């Protein structure tokens, strides 16, 4: 793919991924076929900051976990009132990185 397009994509979407993955994403995108460009742009990436706000407001209902696609753990969190409140607090610190990981998993499916 065109290096200009790749740089544009990385500039606008850098906050959705972990910093250590950015180089890898750049290399893979450069090797990628032009026809996948629209699919790459169409991925539903979640903003870590938004998820963090959701986690602080409604973390004890498990809504943050549902939003990033961890439905199984979301149900567990809902049933136990956010793991008696403890898990909900731990997730305030984990959820941003988890969101970036989930975004990477979504992109990875197209990069291969």
């Amino acid at each position, binding site marked *: 793919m065109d290096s200009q397009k790749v740089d544009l994509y990385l500039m606008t979407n850098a906050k959705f991924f972990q910093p250590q993955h950015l180089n890898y994403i750049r290399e893979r995108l450069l090797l990628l076929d032009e026809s996948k460009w629209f699919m790459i742009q169409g991925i539903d990436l979640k903003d870590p900051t938004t998820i963090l706000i959701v986690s602080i407001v409604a973390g*004890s*209902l498990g809504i943050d976990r549902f939003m990033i*696609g*961890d*439905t*199984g*753990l979301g*149900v*567990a969190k*809902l*049933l*136990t*009132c*956010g*793991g*008696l*409140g*403890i898990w*909900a*607090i731990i997730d305030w610190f984990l959820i941003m990185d988890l969101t970036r990981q989930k975004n990477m998993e979504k992109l990875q499916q197209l990069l291969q």
Partner: protein
Amino acid sequence: MTRNRLYLLFFIALIAGYIYLAYAISQQQMHSTFTPCVFKNATGIACPSCGATRSVLLLAHGNFASAFMLNPFGFIIATIMVIGPFWMLYDFVFKKDTLHLAFQKFEQAVKTKWVAAILILLVVANWIWNINKGL
């Protein structure tokens, strides 16, 4: 989620659940009004799963009707806590991953739109019921 990670998390959750249950039984005899629920402590109104501990305790005494009236979530939690250890032991002994496969199937099922809509409606209905009961 990988298989081993799921089993580790499930194991920790089960142990924490049983420890909390033992703690709740010892507290119940003293009629304490302590609640660990952050949501309830912050807002003063019950969360969807408030009363689940009391419901599980009632189930342990064989009080099915009053357990359902207190919070139907107690049935789900009690089922998981009773079946969970045996299921995990079965997988562990025979080196299978039936629990992991079931978990993945469950996650897929919950992600379908109409299933999710029904479940959300049920949870919200239970929440309204909880607030009305004044748990």
